[in-house]
């Protein structure tokens, strides 16, 4: 069966195998090659529960336009061996026109992959690699995938050269193995050729975790304390050497209680500070976040959300820490909550969070997630935005200095240790203007109003949400669902249905007036989120007066939200 080789604007391929098969290395090279050839791309990864050496899958989408979401199905699944690869079946949906490539010497593909009607093409990856001294099956598979989607050999070569800087025999062997794979692809009678690459633009290859770390540094963060946790660890591992290079410091703390209190101490000392964690760690940090609110100490906490509750599914995504981030603090504790809406947007959102936290002297929680954090994307070079830490500092020997003086904006100049004549004690106890503990009702109310007023004292501008499209229908969403919603709308356009996409970046403080205006003329809105309990829907109902009829689309992790499920929902609901 030879397939019509119609040029495609998006192709999804996956490479799987057991530990040590090198599927991640090959996947990263394929993404790099696609980028070299001028395509956009997104790579996500999955691995088994083993700590080391378990099966793994590199899942790539390569396209002529930016990919902010995974696609519905994979066109090609290649496996170096089948080990326990069947466990990824739910993450690797195939279709009739898909191709499953495997090495017959490693056994037959698991039945679950062929149920879709996908065709199986045996290729002796290992035997082919063995013919090339120093050749590896994963490199043959890389060539095969590159060949199937029509990547130019020069791009594959450039990707290999970039990641094997030492060159020499190893590079030569890999290039030969890749070439053998490309030749093998030509024999398969199936092709999934990409349409020509779009015009070149300036692009970055970056993960969400790196983007968040870099955004923080751009925003002025120079101190980080943290405790390792999946899927936030890579953010910290990227920041450790990066901070060192710009004159900052990272401390590995003994636990999350320590991390958050360390950054409070450092920020009290005048140094913009951050910690990164995931749900279990955020739970431990909640008490001290309240201290940041009460003592008015700016900090940034990035929560790379994973599937909960409890330890949950540590390596998978979900959007279910919204309640904790919004409402977890005891007492009335106004603070900032922000959420990026794409892998690359982790940069802008974390930078903005740092800027806002510093300006308003308040903790900011950034809700990223495993999907963003661990996905690597080819994205348009993020704009350089001038958000930087802008903390208002008190002058030395200021007359009658009061740390918590009641100002119209609610923000009061902060004395930084080392500054003469204005010493004070930062306090989590309710206090008067000087910071002296007070249990008077008047002080409590005045300071409470001050802390609340701060958050309403500035105009959050256009960054509060991402708004696209027109129409009487709207989808309101946030975080990593945004890409799938955007794509669903693009498809719905083909069915004659159009609507507005609203993805909230600023979750707290809520912006009811801005949302009201953004929804003008909208009659019905679909609320899309990745939470079993509908946390975002409840948040919208609680924080906003929504002028339109609302419908909820929600599902829990661990599987990503795919465009097709939202596309179908939009159609069904627009016709209802």
């Amino acid at each position, binding site marked *: 069966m030879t397939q019509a080789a119609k040029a495609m604007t998006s192709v999804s391929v996956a490479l799987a195998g057991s530990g040590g098969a090198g599927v991640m290395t090959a996947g990263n090279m394929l993404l790099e090659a696609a980028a070299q050839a001028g395509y956009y791309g997104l790579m996500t990864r999955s691995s088994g529960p083993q700590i080391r050496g378990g099966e793994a899958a590199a899942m790539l989408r390569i396209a002529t336009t930016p990919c902010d979401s995974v696609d519905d199905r994979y066109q090609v699944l290649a496996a170096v061996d089948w080990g326990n690869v069947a466990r990824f079946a739910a993450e690797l949906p195939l279709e009739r026109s898909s191709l499953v490539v495997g090495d017959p010497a490693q056994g037959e593909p698991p039945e679950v992959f062929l149920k879709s009607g996908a065709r199986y093409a045996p290729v002796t990856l290992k035997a082919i690699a063995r013919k090339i001294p120093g050749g590896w099956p994963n490199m043959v598979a890389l060539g095969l995938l590159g060949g199937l989607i029509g990547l130019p050999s020069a791009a594959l070569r450039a990707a290999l050269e970039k990641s094997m800087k030492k060159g020499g025999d190893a590079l030569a062997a890999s290039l030969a193995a890749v070439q053998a794979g490309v030749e093998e692809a030509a024999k398969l009678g199936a092709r999934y050729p990409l349409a020509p690459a779009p015009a070149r633009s300036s692009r970055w290859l970056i993960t969400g975790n790196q983007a968040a770390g870099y955004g923080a540094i751009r925003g002025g963060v120079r101190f980080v304390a943290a405790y390792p946790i999946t899927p936030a660890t890579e953010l910290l591992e990227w920041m450790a050497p990066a901070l060192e*290079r710009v004159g900052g410091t990272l*401390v590995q703390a003994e636990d999350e209680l320590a991390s958050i209190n360390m950054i409070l101490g450092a920020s009290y000392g005048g140094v913009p500070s951050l910690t990164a964690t995931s749900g279990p760690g955020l739970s431990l940090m909640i008490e001290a976040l309240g201290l940041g609110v009460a003592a008015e100490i700016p900090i940034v906490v990035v929560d790379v959300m994973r599937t909960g509750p409890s330890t949950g599914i540590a390596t998978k995504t979900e959007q279910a820490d919204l309640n904790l981030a919004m409402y977890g603090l005891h007492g009335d504790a106004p603070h900032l909550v922000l959420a990026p809406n794409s892998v690359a947007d982790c940069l802008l959102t974390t930078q903005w969070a740092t800027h806002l936290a510093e300006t308003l002297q308040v903790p900011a929680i950034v809700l990223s997630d495993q999907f963003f954090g661990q996905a690597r994307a080819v994205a348009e070079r993020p704009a350089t935005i001038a958000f930087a830490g802008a903390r208002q500092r008190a002058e030395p020997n200021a007359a009658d200095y009061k740390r918590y003086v009641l100002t119209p904006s609610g923000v009061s100049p902060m004395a930084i240790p080392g*500054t003469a004549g204005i010493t*004070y004690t930062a306090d989590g106890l309710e206090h008067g203007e000087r910071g002296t503990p007070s249990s008077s009702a008047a002080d409590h109310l005045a300071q409470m109003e001050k802390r609340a007023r701060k958050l309403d004292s500035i105009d959050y501008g256009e960054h509060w949400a991402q708004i696209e499209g027109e129409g009487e229908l709207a989808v309101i969403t946030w975080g990593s669902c945004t890409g799938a919603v955007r794509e669903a709308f693009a498809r719905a356009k083909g069915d004659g249905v159009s609507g507005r996409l609203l993805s909230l970046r600023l979750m707290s403080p809520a912006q009811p007036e801005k949302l009201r205006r953004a929804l003008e003329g909208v009659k019905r809105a679909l609320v899309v989120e990745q939470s079993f309990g509908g946390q975002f829907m409840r948040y919208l109902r609680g924080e906003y007066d929504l002028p339109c009829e609302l419908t909820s689309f929600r599902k829990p992790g661990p599987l990503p939200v795919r465009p097709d499920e939202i596309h179908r929902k939009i159609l069904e609901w627009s016709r209802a």
Partner: protein
Amino acid sequence: MNAPAPAASFKPQQFKSDVKPVWCPGCGDYTVLSSITKALAALEVRPENVAVVSGIGCSSRIPAYTTCYGFHGVHGRALAAATGLKVARPDLTVIAAGGDGDGYSIGGNHFLHACRRNVDLTYIVMDNRVYGMTKGQPSPTTEPDWDSKLSPHGTGLREFHPLVIALASGANFIARATSSDPNGTAELIAQAVRHPGFSFIEVLSPCVTFRPEQRSWKDMVHPAPVAPTDDPARAARRLMTDDGFNIGVLFAGHRKPYQPVKSATPRSVAELAAEFVL
């Protein structure tokens, strides 16, 4: 930040704020406060270059009673906040202070790791073997047979030995002091601040309200009969066998303080993006 004033101008009184302590009359913490102010005057540091960091408890109220920069955080986390502050601002003199409940119970893990990490700061624990602020419950240093409303038959639990634990965890300076000797305690605090790395001083500071029998501590304390050692093995033997009332420096080590690597020639933030550019 400012040029140091001439030495003669450093007076303990300068370090005492006009905030009236909430403490009960006779509480040991009053004298610890005056020992801190005396030590700071002797150290000739300016109040704005000192930060006093605490958690929650009667004793943890101490920062606001000084004219230094103060940080009155949450229960048990004084050492974490002090660590972050000192690492971010190595130019400051950082003193963490608090109670036995704050430091050994809820904050126990931070105590171990602060000793291990050996950041150059001083930790003063006002040990009254009780939770004073919450009105008289047993703490980790409370005797097993001390009964209270919450532990009617006593805890039956062996006491925590803070000095032994500090030594085993790597503290670089270990001393025991008593609130009944404010000048002696001031001298020990000054030594602790001068000593590089993590310095730990356990101060016997009676809670006259919930442990009135502790008033007799002043008759039980005595100077340590031997000079401080820098040998952890000897220090361990002494600490394991001492009567709990030896006052003085019990260990002074030579560990290098924690000093995170910082680039001497910081690069520009924009350069960091090079690795992402295609």
